[in-house]
């Protein structure tokens, strides 16, 4: 197993994995939209043990997380969203989904200053709900009725990313300390400034993305 960032060339097999596993499917262009808008956020799990069948084999994708930043957050708070997450039935119980999610969450904070991450899950999907709430610590926000095309309800969930932010702050402070720069007060001073700046990042329409924005962000994990 190899867990790494998504590359554009992975997309056909990510799409393939999605089509094999989940009822919510997307055009290639929608994957490209994610890969080219937030390349830091999506991760794949690759079966590196698979013997090659031809010189042109692409890495076999056995799991992926497709993630984005909310373009125009209604609450005005920068946050990430999980568009789709899936692991092949044959590759379960290795903790792949959790590992993919953790990498993505870290990048959400580092690169885009996300405050929290949200997702939707089918109310009947016990295994996924267990992963999100028990393993990853998501909170159940609300239920959205008939969210899915087949009429099933979704739980809307979110996870506060403060603890990741804290870790990054600590690591940054430690790094500064290593470099012999003032620690403590100075270290903690730098971050609030940074956060303030982060809120100023132009997102969504500010960058003129409406042409490609998925109008329905009610995609599924």
């Amino acid at each position, binding site marked *: 197993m*190899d867990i790494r960032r998504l590359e*554009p060339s992975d997309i056909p097999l990510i799409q393939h994995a999605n089509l094999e596993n989940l009822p919510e499917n997307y055009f290639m262009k929608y994957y490209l939209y994610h890969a080219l808008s937030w390349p830091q956020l999506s991760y794949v799990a690759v079966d590196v043990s698979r013997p090659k069948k031809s010189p042109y084999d692409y890495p076999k994708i056995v799991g992926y997380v497709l993630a984005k930043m909310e373009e125009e957050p209604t609450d005005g708070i920068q946050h990430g969203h999980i568009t789709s997450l899936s692991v092949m039935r044959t590759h*379960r119980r290795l903790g792949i989904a959790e590992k993919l999610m953790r990498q993505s969450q870290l990048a959400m904070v580092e690169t885009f200053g996300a405050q929290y991450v949200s997702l939707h899950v089918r109310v009947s999907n016990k295994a996924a709900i267990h992963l999100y709430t028990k393993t990853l610590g998501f909170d159940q926000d609300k239920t959205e009725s008939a969210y899915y095309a087949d009429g099933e309800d979704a739980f809307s969930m979110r996870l506060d990313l403060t603890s990741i932010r804290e870790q990054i702050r600590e690591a940054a402070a430690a790094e500064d300390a290593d470099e012999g720069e003032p620690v403590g007060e100075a270290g903690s001073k730098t971050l609030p400034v940074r956060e303030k700046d982060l809120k100023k990042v132009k997102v969504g329409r500010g960058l003129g993305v409406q042409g490609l924005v998925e109008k329905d962000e009610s995609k599924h994990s």
Partner: protein
Amino acid sequence: MCISLGVRVLSVCRQSTQYQTRHLLRSEHHLAPPPPPLKYVPTSRLPVSPSPPAPSVCRGSLQCPPVLGPSVQQLSLAAMPQPLSSKENSLFRQVIRNYEEKQYKRGLKAAEQILKKNPKHGDTLAMKGLIINSLGKTDEAFALAKEALTADMKSHICWHVYGILYRHQKNFEEAIKAYKFALKLEPGSPQIQRDLAFLQIQMRDYQGYVQSRTAMLQSKSQLRQNWTALAVAHHLAGDLVQAEKVLTTYEESLKAPPSHADLENSEALLYKNSIIAETGDYQRALDHLQSIAKHNLDRLAVLELRAEYLAKLGKKDEAIKAYRALLDRNSEHPEYYNKLADVMGLGDSDTNARKAIYDEYAQKNPRCDAAKRLPLDFLTGAGRKVADYPTGNDFHDAAKIYLKLMLDKGVPSTFANLKHLYSDPFKKETLQSLAHDYVETAESPAGGGSSDGDLKGKPAGLYYLAQHYNYHLSRDLAKALDFVDKGLVIVPENVEFHMTKARIWKHRGNTRKAAEIMDQARNLDLKDRYINTKAAKYQLRNNETAKALKTMSLFTRNDNANGPLAELIDMQSIWYLTEDGEASVRNGLIGLALKRFHAVYNIFDVWQEDQFDFHSFSLRKGQIRAYVDMIRWEDKLREHPFYTRAALGAIAAYLGIYDSKLAMDEVNGSANGNAEDEAEKKRALKKAKKEAQKAEREAAEQAAKQDPNKPKTSITENVKKDDDPIGLKLASTDQPLVEATKFLLPILQFSPKSIDGQVAGFEVYIRREKYLLALSCLNAAIAIDPTNPVVHEQAVRFRKALTSVAASLPAKVAEVINSEFTAIDASTDLKKYNAGFLEKHKDSAAHVVSTIKIRKLLGEDQKTCEKALFGILDMKSDDWEPAAEALGLFYQWRSSEADAFRKAAEEKWPEVTLFKPPPPPPSTS
């Protein structure tokens, strides 16, 4: 190159241009938002068209009265030989507005109103053409656009529209020409310039793109993305130095450093860093990276690049630290371990030291898989004493620990994660005996498997062994089945055991039973699409296309008015289309098969087209490195095995069409077809039609049943009729070889090392009598695998063909062929040559079949050849596929022995569905 920051041809109308460009240039196809929303979302989420204030001043040639709406200025200004009255002017404005708002009928009406008085008004004619094109009447649109140009050759609008029409048709070369004309007439037009630029990069006209981007920068140099874009243009054109210079020029023009949170800046700096690294000057790349690292927002990229540069520069200690930092972030990335071992200077034989690295991370991250499993790749220990190693450092011990851990935990992918080790016989045997030991000692968990269907302990071990004996390097299908059955005693409802059982039957050649069992597996977990997909795939392998579609429809969205098949095409489900195409070939429904292969071909066209919007989008988003990655991937898009497989299917189908036509012509002495064959063809077509209709109907019914709440109207409304639903037109092509070539060329270009592609290329070119091209495929195939039986056949066929056509070949061609075709010398006795090949490969049934084919080709009596084919049934082999090919030859030769051979094969391989007697003709329904 000269770029001065002072250049500012800023037009106040600028704001408006985006609006206009967005709408005018957006062919619906390209800018259709990504996939259809799953839920209807109210329009409040739709982008609102910005309505910029009417400009007060216009510069350059743009003489626009302020009363005109913003977008109209761009179109209605300038060369207008026949000025319109103010009333018509406002009508013209309305035409444009209507077009932009997709109110085509109104727009058309307004245009006609203008044309009534000014029948030769070029711009109106052009706009009318554009609207008509949007209504789907492309031919009429072109006629109008041409008329418009005749009326007003000097209007940039007319040329622009002409370009847009070509662009819509995907005739990019012509579109570029038209845009260039338009731009010549209206050099200041930003949107024509943009349109041209994006087509140039789409077409990979790098030099043209550099030119366009230079002009765009000059006209609006305060925008960072224009600088970045020019750098990208130089970069893609291969000019790293210029690319870097452009980026630096912009950076130096900044008076204040951008905010740390400026993502565009952060990305641009990393992009520049990647360009420096591409020059190979890693020291400079490292220095630059250090200077931008601290506040860069892409932390992972910074860490990875830093580690890479340090490693390349041989800075051992720092590189070690850098790779350790990466492993702390993500210990599931094998590359980091390998690089760490490299920079530490550990060789392949330093297994103890290497193992220590992995152990360290396994300890740090108890849930890490990579650290525990990867050492199995390099640990050895065959024939050595365990005592030579610290505990756990020889393969046997490490594998034992790993296997126990995984099976206790019930990780279903354990076998999949280890099977690559089987190429080493020692490891294969070790794993086999370890798994047996495990099964003998393991307890079965109380109550069989755990409640959620996981396989832990003994059943996990049995599952491992079932897969082990099903794998081609350790195959013993009887044993495999035995372990499945043992497992099913403990966990009778388990999906995984059923899946493996189905695969075992597939390997036995019993596609019918395999499909049945996979469907049982599906029924054990109806909510899981994965198992549903597998069930459908196995049905397709068993040629049950209608049933498979029905299975698929259990998970496709059922609001697609054209039914589940259309939904699968829309969702670009390549695997399904390919498998369905291949099943259709086996069912003799060539038209249907071609239909599917063409659908895959079209998906690749769409994928290529999909990049178009990102030429502008990515610049706005600022994620340049990802964009460049995408461009480079798109450059070789069709190297994907998805393309090759479907294309090979199509080529084979077209070759079949060509050959059967040829055979028919030979029999009939051309012209009036054989009545019997014709009748048979008709019957086959009728059958195909019926089956396709039935499949569609059933699947649609199934889909309708899925959701009782679904309004019925959606099924009937807006159904676009396919005028060739079962591919009859495709199959009746007059030019099967031309069509085959269309599928072939991308394979030869992008996957030249695919032996199947070269073999197919030979077949196409030899029929087209393109001997040089056929030879080039043949030589490429020989270079890949000289012992391949089909390559042998082709080489002999080529030599034989040469002897008969040599005289008619142009001298130059003959000369080149003579010097290039070295596999079989001209003086060779082909029969002897063939016999020699047989002697070398007499134990391989596939090779034997090939040599028999050649014997027949070289004039040997059919009876003798048939007898020889019977001989392969006496060979000791479990592989039934050569016999299947032989059976195919019996049919092809219309041999009276065909059924006898089939029976004999059935006797030897009673499970193989192919050797079963053909089903009785279905009673007419």
